[in-house]
Structure formats: C-alpha cells, structure tokens
C-alpha cells in the first residue's frame, strides 16, 4: 500500500501498533490521526470510515468483510469529490484491514490516471469513440435516405410505365377512328363518317382530360399550398353545384361542416373527386349520394356513401393507384381521381378507407380523415 508514497510497512506497523489510524497521502507524505481525536485532516477516529469518506458510503458490509480476509482490499481509482468552483483532485482510494491491530488503514493517493499524458490519451480515445458514433449515425441516415430515393425511383418508373400505356390507348383509338372515317368516305357512308367523328371527338376529350388530371396530379407535390380560412359548408355546396350529374342522382349534405384553417384548394380537390367519382360510376338512373362531415379535435372525417355498384373487396386497395380502373369502366374518367386524393392525404398525414356500406345495401362507403393540422410525411 505504501509503495507509491514515502511509507513502508515498518512505519505502518509502528503506527498501527501504537493504536493509530493512518491516513496515508502519498502526495503530502504521511499524515497521522491519533485515537484521541486530534484529526488534522478532519477524519475522526472511531467513527465509521463510511460516514467520513464519501467514496466509502454504502461500503460498510464490504469493509466489515475485510476483517475476515486481511489480504483483500477495496480499491477505487480516480475518485473525486466534485466542487463548485475548483477542479477537484482525483484520488485513488485504497482500504485494507490490519489484522494485528484490528484497524482499517486507508490510503488516499493522487490518481495515477491524473497525469496529463493519461488524461490526454483517455480523452483522445473518447473523442474517437464519439466521432465513430456520429459517423455511424450519419451512415444510418444516408442509408435511410438512399432507401427512400430508391423507393421514389421505383414509384417513378411505375408511374412512367402506366402513363405511357394510358396515353397510348386513346391515341391508338384515334388512329383506328381515322381509318374508319377514311373507310366511310371511300364507301360514301355519311352516317359512318359522323359516327367515327363522334368517336374521335370522344377520344380527344378523354386524352385532354387525362393530360389535365396528370398535370394536377404532379402538381400535388408542390408543398407551397397556403392555408386559409375555409367555410367548409360553403365549399361543399359550391363543389356539388359545379359537378354535372344526371337528374335522378341526388347529392345530400349531412353532419357538421366547420370553419377551418386549411389548404382550401386541396380540400376542394378531395371533395370534388370523391363526389365526382360517386356520380360518374353510378350505374342506375336514380340514386343518392350522401356526404357527411364530422369533426374531432384532430381531424375532420368525411364520409361519402352512394348506392351505386360498389367497389369489390379485391379492388379496394388497387383503385388508389394512378390510372386504376375497374373492368367495364373504361370511359368513366382518367383513373387519377382516387390516386390524387390518396396522394394529398399522404402529404397531409391523413387517410382514406374504402369499404361497403354499413347498412348492407349496394354501394360504396369512402371515409377520408382530413387532419386539422398538416403533418409532414
């Protein structure tokens, strides 16, 4: 114990045999406290060491066990009592029990790790560890960004494939109708010419609609859409009034339509497409479409219920993809309506759910959750 100080075993034994507790400080030489209580260092004899040296707090049992094993010691390196305005000296604390004298001997020495070189080495190791941790964090972030980019690229590729296919279809049809017109002219078939021209006109309208919707769909990525105060009741009335529909199809507005601060154009687009879809895909001369709104603290819930043909369960998720159409429904629109709604909702942190009517009757029920505050996704 005294190997780092000016003490040797002989001195310690002499101190112990004289009934003294020895507090050995290698930095200042040997300090001794006698049993009468004259304690220059503040250590009071006969009081448990654990009460006097904070570093030994809680070690009563450990200290007691040293009595049974005199060869053992408790050692704690680099301990300091932190102080407000000074750099505390770091110390190595060592406690042994002197069997012959039945006294604990505590050695408190300046820490070996306290020299400048050791600290510098330790700190450079730690800095390296921290840098490695930061690099690992950044690498993970870059990998996540790469994965997101790969997903975007895959989506873009799918989108391009679908767009090229769906643009080609009406153009191919136009070529066929041009051939039909030519054939009808050669045959002097005026009625045939007029019918083919009608078909051609329909295909150009379809192509025009497709291009307009495509433009609207791509513009949804523009996040600069400003929020404004919107009277949703007035908005839904305007949307319904602007949509052409057969006389037998009734659109009914129900529920609570609040005043909101939100992105008006996008909400308009969602409502317009929901109702337009329900009208366009209705297969009967007479029908009813109910548009219900309900508001909670976090979101406005829009429920559109119709009594049209409904959407079969197997198509409910695929109809959200761009240009998705159900079979037998080739001419009803561009196939971008629900895709636009889905994209808007994903951007805002909302959701769309497509299902059957709750009352078991024919028709579809679409529930849109429109968050009151925009959540970046």
């Amino acid at each position, binding site marked *: 114990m005294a190997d780092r100080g000016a003490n040797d075993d002989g001195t310690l034994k002499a101190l112990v045999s004289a009934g003294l507790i020895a507090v050995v400080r290698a930095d200042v030489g040997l300090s001794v406290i006698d049993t009468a209580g004259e304690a220059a260092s503040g250590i009071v004899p006969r009081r448990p060491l654990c009460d006097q040296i904070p*570093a030994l707090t809680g*070690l009563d049992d*450990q200290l007691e066990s040293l009595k049974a094993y005199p060869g053992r010691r408790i050692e*704690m390196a680099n*301990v*300091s009592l*932190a102080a407000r305005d000074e750099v505390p000296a770091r110390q190595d604390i060592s406690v042994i029990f002197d069997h012959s004298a039945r006294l604990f001997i505590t050695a408190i020495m300046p820490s070996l790790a306290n020299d400048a070189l050791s600290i510098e080495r330790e700190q450079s190791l*730690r800095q390296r*560890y921290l840098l490695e941790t930061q690099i690992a964090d950044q690498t993970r972030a870059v990998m996540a960004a790469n994965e997101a980019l790969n997903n975007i690229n895959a989506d873009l590729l799918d989108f391009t494939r679908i767009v090229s296919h769906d643009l080609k279809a009406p153009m191919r049809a136009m070529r066929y109708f041009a051939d039909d017109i030519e054939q009808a002219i050669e045959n002097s078939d005026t009625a045939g010419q007029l019918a083919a021209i009608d078909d051609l006109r329909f295909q150009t309208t379809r192509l025009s609609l497709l291009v307009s919707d495509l433009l609207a769909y791509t513009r949804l990525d523009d996040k600069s859409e400003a929020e404004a105060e919107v009277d949703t009741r007035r908005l839904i009335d305007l949307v319904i009034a602007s949509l052409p529909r057969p006389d037998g199809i009734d659109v009914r507005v129900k529920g609570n339509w609040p005043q909101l601060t939100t992105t008006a154009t996008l909400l308009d687009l969602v409502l317009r497409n929901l109702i337009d879809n329900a009208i366009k895909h209705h297969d009967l001369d007479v029908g009813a479409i109910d548009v219900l709104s309900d508001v909670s603290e976090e979101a406005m819930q829009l429920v559109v219920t119709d009594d049209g043909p409904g959407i079969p369960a197997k198509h409910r998720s695929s109809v959200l993809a761009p240009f998705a159409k159900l079979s037998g429904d080739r001419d009803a629109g561009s196939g971008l309506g629900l895709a636009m709604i889905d994209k808007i909702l994903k951007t805002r942190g909302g959701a769309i759910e497509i299902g059957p009517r709750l009352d078991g009757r024919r028709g579809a029920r679409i529930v849109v959750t429109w968050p009151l505050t925009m959540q970046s996704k």
Partner: protein
Amino acid sequence: MIVRKLMLLGDMAVGKTSIANRLAFDRFGESYKSTIGTDIYVYDVDPPPGGKPFQFLIWDTDGNFEDAMFRSHYMRGAHAAIIVGDLTRRATLESQLRLTQKFSEALPGRYFAAVLNKNDLTDQFPPEDDWLPDGLREPYFPLLRTSAKSGLNIQRTFEEAAQTIVRRHL
C-alpha cells in the same frame, strides 16, 4: 440525516455530468469533457415537513465502464440509480435499457429510474415516441424526459427518487 448513494449510469456523452452539474451547482457547460473515473456530488433534497434531512451522494460514473461497472467497487452499496439515455442517439437508448436490466439484476429491489436527456434538441429526434425502443415506450420503471441545458425535470427526477427511497425504506 439520511444519506444515500445514487449512481448516474449511461453511455458516454449522454449528459450524466451535465445532469449532476445542473443539479448540484445549477450550471450547464456547453463544452464536453468526459469523466474519467468517478465524480461524487453532494445534493441535499428538501425534506417534507417533519421529515428527516435527506442527502444524495451522486456518483457520476465514467460512461466507458459500461457493464463492467456492475462488477466494480464503485457500484457496491449503491442505494439507487438514475440511468441516462441521449434522445439524439438511439444506440444510447438501447444501452440504457440494457443497464436498467443489469441494475435490477445486480441490486434487486433498489430504486432506479431512467431519463431521456437532451430533450431541448428537438430538431434531432422525431416528435412522436414510436421510434423509441419498445422498453422505453411503455416502461415498467419511472421515465422522464430531461434537459440538463434547460433544467427540465432534473430536480424532479431526484426528488421523486428521494421520496420513493424514504417511502419504501430503501
């Protein structure tokens, strides 16, 4: 006077020393200097009316000890632990969970709590809790978000620890 030894555990640079400094001296240093060995801080908790004075000896440990801490004399006789994680580094939260498990195994029945520190750096971690390791989303131990920089929940963490220790006679 009730004196209890409380360990501050957690990975390197999660803010253990900053928490101890905020608590004991009400200060926060911007520069990082890692703890080598152990620093002991003394913190007096205001006793309830009629209660005994209560003092924590807070052992701010070297984060580099990791699990070896549980086999060292530094840990012996500890009455409690506050286990610290850094909200801006997820790996430190995994370590934090492991340390809670190790502490409850090494010192069964002793009080421990976890704190998610650096809560002031809100631009460096997601706002929702769903990214946190499972054991920290629904913990079976006390868990608070703290900021040694602003002082958020620092005193409260230690006051709650003292109250529980007194109530349970730990």
